[in-house]
């Protein structure tokens, strides 16, 4: 279990979207750009691939397209470092960046860029081509690449569920390759963005009803928590709890609201950006498969 603390007040959240050729990454990027309730920046491999409704385009400037909803879409033509640096220096800088990894990239190596100063990694999301993944995993040319991508994920999205007869087999195969990841499924890359970003969890402390395959439970308390108690609580969390997010206060610096989040087996803690309107006390929501989140999940926090 990895953990760290970033104390930057204005860190930008980075999410990496990986997956093999044809898994639906670009469609997901489109979905994020049009469905996001807040302005995000997406970094994509190829403008030609992304099909943005022309009515949504506000302006095109070299390697970036500004949308009327405040989102920005940038090309990775000059590489990750230069694209991330450009976004970091932008005024105002985006609060959230989503990077599309190439179809053969190891998403873990792309995610490494999400740890640079001023950034923090939210999650590695890997799109899985539900209709073809079993075949890919037995094709000697691409099996290793696909398996490595699956293994690098915090969140696995089985896409093209509509073309799939046996979701259970695919899920079992994915679990074998990555026991720690949260697995969800969808059609046409239409996944709930709150599952991706957990943003609603922070601002409203509720989990949207659409996530009907999951149960969520919330915890509220007032006294600051010790770092050690938090770490011990995370260690003891049941395996079923794979997504958690919240805002809490640490006893060492109770005046700073800290964002806690956990995706799959990865968790982190960082200071909440000033511009948000932080809730008082501690609020944490956990999400797990329906019926599998135990009642006493938050004992360690009380």
């Amino acid at each position, binding site marked *: 279990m990895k953990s760290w603390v970033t104390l930057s007040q204005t860190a930008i959240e980075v999410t990496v979207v990986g997956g093999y050729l044809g898994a639906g990454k670009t469609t997901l990027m489109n979905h994020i750009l049009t469905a996001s309730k807040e302005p995000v920046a997406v970094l994509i491999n190829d403008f030609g691939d992304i099909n943005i409704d022309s009515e949504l385009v506000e302006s095109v400037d070299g390697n970036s397209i500004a949308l009327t909803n405040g989102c920005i879409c940038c090309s990775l033509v000059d590489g*990750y*470092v230069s694209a991330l640096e450009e976004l970091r220096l932008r005024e105002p800088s985006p609060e959230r960046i989503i990077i599309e990894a190439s*179809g053969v990239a190891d998403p873990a190596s792309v995610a490494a*860029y999400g740890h*640079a100063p001023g950034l923090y990694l939210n999650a590695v999301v890997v799109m899985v081509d539900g209709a073809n993944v079993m075949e890919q995993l037995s094709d000697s*040319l691409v099996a*290793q690449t696909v398996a490595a991508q699956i293994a690098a994920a915090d969140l696995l999205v089985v896409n093209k569920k509509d073309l799939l007869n046996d979701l259970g087999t695919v899920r079992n195969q994915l679990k074998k390759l990555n026991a720690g990841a949260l697995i969800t499924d969808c059609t046409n890359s239409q996944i709930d963005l709150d599952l991706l970003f957990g943003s609603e969890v922070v601002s409203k402390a509720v989990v949207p009803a659409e996530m009907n395959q999951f149960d969520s439970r919330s915890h509220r308390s007032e006294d600051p928590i010790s770092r050690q108690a938090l770490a011990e609580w995370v260690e003891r969390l049941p395996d079923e709890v794979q997504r958690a997010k919240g805002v809490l206060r640490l006893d060492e610096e109770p005046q700073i609201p800290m964002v806690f989040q956990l995706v799959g087996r990865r968790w982190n803690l960082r200071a909440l950006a000033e511009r948000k309107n932080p809730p008082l006390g501690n609020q944490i929501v956990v999400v797990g498969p329906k019926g599998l989140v135990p009642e006493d999940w938050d004992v360690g926090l009380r």
Partner: protein
Amino acid sequence: MSEEPITLFIAKKIVTMDPATPAATAIAVQGDRIVGIGDSEDPDLKKATQIDNRFSQHVLLPGFVEAHAHVMSGGLWEFPYVGFYERADPTGRSWKGCGDIDSVVERLVEYDEQMEDPARTLIAWGLDPIFLKGDRLSSTHLDRVSRTRPIFVLHASGHLATVNSEMMRKSSIDRHSPTPGVARDVDGEPTGELQEPAAMSLALEGLSTIGKAMMSSEAKWNFGLEARNCGVTTVADLGTTRLAREGQLEAWREVTDARNYPARVVVAFGHYDLGAGPTDIDDLAGIAARLSNEEETTKLRFGIVKLILDGSIQGFTARLSPPHYFDPPPGHPGNGLWLIPPEQMSKIVASYHKAGLTVHCHCNGDEASQVFIDAVEEALTVHPRDDHRHTVQHSQLTTAKQYRKMASLGMNANIFSNHIFYWGDQHAEITLGAQRAAAMDACATAERENVRFSIHSDAPITPMSQLHTIWCAVNRKTASGKTLGPNERIDVHKAIEACTIDAAHQLRLDNEIGSLQVGKFADFTVLESDPYEVEPEKLKDIPVWGTVVGGVVHEAASE
């Protein structure tokens, strides 16, 4: 008839690589072209305006063609070299190898003292920890050079860098840095070693300074000087320059237009020039074709597209057929990496093929060669095209069966013979095992199966020197002195052919360079002794006097 003066160069021997007139002693040059070749007593030749006797004790060959190098080879010389092997810079200065950490530190101290601006970053390159005994280079060592000036040492692999504590301070690298690849000591403190691009990019100032140097005009000049020093008159920058980038075409034009720029340069168009994964490859093909049709000069050529399909054998990232790697490091997944999804290759190759371009594809492993060969076959089935010359680059593990297929499809190979010397021992012991290592870089098999091939240095991966590369292909000696796969050795003539006419062929320039014939460019390599006469073991030691490029004489720099 042109009124330009004709110069008759007299030489001890002229090797023409033209089977009709294999040898001569005089060659007449008018402007940048050859107008006559034959015996120095030939009365027709003696009608030349002037006789140039300076090569009367030298051996002339058609100018060597290095068909796979990278312009950053020139850019790196802006910074001090701290590699293990001795290496000559473009000015001819020989840099002694750094055999241990103390000599690395010593060289950097020397540089630190010379640098006027105390805040400027000190950058060095070429460090190869495999060869250095004792500790691994760390910030502690580099702090002995300076604790106030940032220092960035790029390793030979290009995948690692080591920085000092001032660079770490400036880059906010500390024990809390979460980036994977920030190496740590037992107490969790960063050692200064940054592994892989994401960690290296934390020391952004170092990396971006190197990036700028690689693309500068000085890099382009150094590239030409480096070529001249080893007798190369035509050199390919294989997909390094981003030609779609503003200013790069103009910069190449300006440099190569200079009369004293000592090389013809073939700048291959990189498939990734416009982005990490372009959908509309036809657009890219259009740009590449336009360059080839409209922007060429006598010393600047286009028309080649470079693809990179897999990684490297020594990095365990090349795609190999079973049984894959011999003794990979713990945790290695078994096979290498694809840099392009194999399913996409047909479409990519077909686009460039249709546009009339020649595709040169980096394939270190045999599985990669197969995917490329299959893509070429498919493109040819849909769009039959004569004389395309699509080329397997590196071609290190291409098998006899694959060479047969390549011959039937009209494909070429450019074989990385320098690997035999630089990594042959490691291939026999670690990456491939003795049997497959003996069959790698199989020039004799390519020859037997009738595939036209060239041999290359991939500079700066290994130093540019065609005589060294010829020596490798002829002798197949490893760094430890073993002969690796004696049955894949080729004879001197074949090796010279690979570096002249056959290299010209795969760059589509064989009608203008590659042999000494009337009407071709007056491009010569000038050697102090005859490669056909010296002991094969001594081929790499033949001194290079210099070159003639388009009739202009360029003496190699030496200390």
